[in-house]
């Protein structure tokens, strides 16, 4: 009898939800008419539904759902399940403009760093495979000289960028960072005399009737 009653209640709920077919409606009406208790319960429910339908609609306050959800006691799931849920469970990411701008800023910084890293070999230590440099020492014994510079393919033959330092024994010296490969050069003594390095490992015609010294650099 109790089970029958529960079944009738469920059918009534479906009726109120508009889910019952015509045959089911007719069967229910017959039973309600025959059972005074069920009839009373049905009337009560109808009154509640009408009251809800006619009452004023009050909008839920903002974040109502979130507040309710926060107050619910979370169920303690096993660790494995929590990890699986964290990784695999679908979720909705809520954005606001502050978060969006923060994300954009982070992205821009990452891109900037990536671009800078990609271009770094041009200006930094040139540690890359092809851009390594070797410090090569060049010397010239010229005790009478007042100023010596070295000009070559590595500095576009500029006579004022690589100036040698005079040692006490009349030897002028400089350490020049050079990329792997061949470099032609000459010393410029006192700003006017172009002197071939007498101690070079090789020499090459300069095309104008003189010889450049050649330095071969390998890693």
């Amino acid at each position: 009898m109790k089970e029958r009653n529960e079944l009738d209640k469920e059918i009534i709920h479906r009726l109120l939800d508009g889910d019952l077919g015509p045959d089911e409606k007719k069967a229910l009406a017959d039973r309600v008419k025959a059972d005074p208790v069920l009839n009373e319960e049905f009337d009560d429910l109808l009154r509640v539904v009408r009251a809800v339908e006619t009452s004023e609609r009050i909008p839920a306050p903002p974040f109502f759902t979130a507040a309710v959800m926060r107050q619910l006691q979370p169920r303690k799931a096993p660790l494995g399940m929590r990890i699986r849920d964290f990784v695999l469970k679908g979720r909705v990411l809520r954005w606001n403009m502050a978060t969006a701008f923060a994300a954009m800023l982070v992205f821009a910084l990452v891109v900037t760093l990536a671009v800078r890293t990609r271009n770094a070999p041009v200006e930094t230590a040139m540690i890359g495979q092809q851009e390594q440099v070797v410090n090569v020492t060049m010397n010239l014994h010229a005790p009478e000289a007042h100023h010596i510079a070295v000009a070559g393919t590595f500095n576009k033959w500029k006579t004022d960028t690589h100036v040698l330092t005079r040692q006490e024994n009349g030897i002028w010296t400089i350490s020049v960072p050079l990329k792997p490969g061949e470099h032609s050069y000459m010393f410029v003594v006192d700003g006017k005399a172009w002197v071939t390095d007498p101690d070079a490992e090789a020499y090459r015609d300069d095309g104008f009737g003189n010889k450049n010294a050649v330095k071969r650099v390998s890693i």
Partner: protein
Amino acid sequence: MKRNKMTTTVLKVLIPLLLAAAAVLGAAPCVRAEDAGQAHLEQARIAVERSGLPKESKTGILTKADRAVAAGVPAEDVSLIITRGLEQGAEGRHVEGFLETAAKTKEQNLPVRPVLDRMEQGLAKGVPPEKIAGVTQRLSEHLAAAKPMVNKFESEGMRSTGAKGSDAAVETVARALERAIPRDAVMRTGEHVKDRKGSMGLFNRAVDTMTTFVGSGMTAEQAANMVHTAVDRGYSERDLEAMERYMVNELRKNRPMSEVVSGMNSRMERGEMLHDMQERPGAGSSMHSPGSGGGMGGMGGRR
């Protein structure tokens, strides 16, 4: 539903913004390079405007500079040639000629660096502009002649280490031709390297060594024979470099070239690899104390 709409709106704004930021940041290096090029050209423009050249010459130089840059000549080099040329008192027609030669070289898809280097070097050393013009014009022609020679070996399977390897070989062959080494000697060198299945790098080194030998006083025939023998005997690029060092050291000792040649030949006959010999006592040291040499050097002076 409202939240989803909000998220969609934010993403609609955010994604284009992020893409724009990435595009701007990605293009930044190119923009910087272009800016640097513009700065160099501006420097040259100012130097031209301040010079005492006639207006037509100024216009001519700037037009040629634009053409050279458009052809792919680095703006820094264009600027350097103009400013250095004007500093050296070169006439407008000479500076125009330099830029014209550089542009033509680049337009023919030839390596332009040796031409630029020769101009910059000549101007720095105070070589008369007429001489620089002639030398660089001929160098450009030699580069044009060298290109098909190198291409032939490349097409026949000589391994190249990228564009630079091939360009380096073109430059080296051009310098050999400049030094009046017969084209046939260069081609035979290539055949020897090819027979050994050698690389473009070995060909480059062999031709360079041959040119150095000729520049130091050997006849072209002597130099070619020596290099071909070395290649046939399996000498590496480093071995050929060691041969050059050996020759330089022997000449520093004031040995006549004939003795140096016979000494190198007899060492090769004995199957000695000169790279190893170089390290052995009594075989000539590549280390000299500063100022101790002087056989090859000397005061160049201003020409």
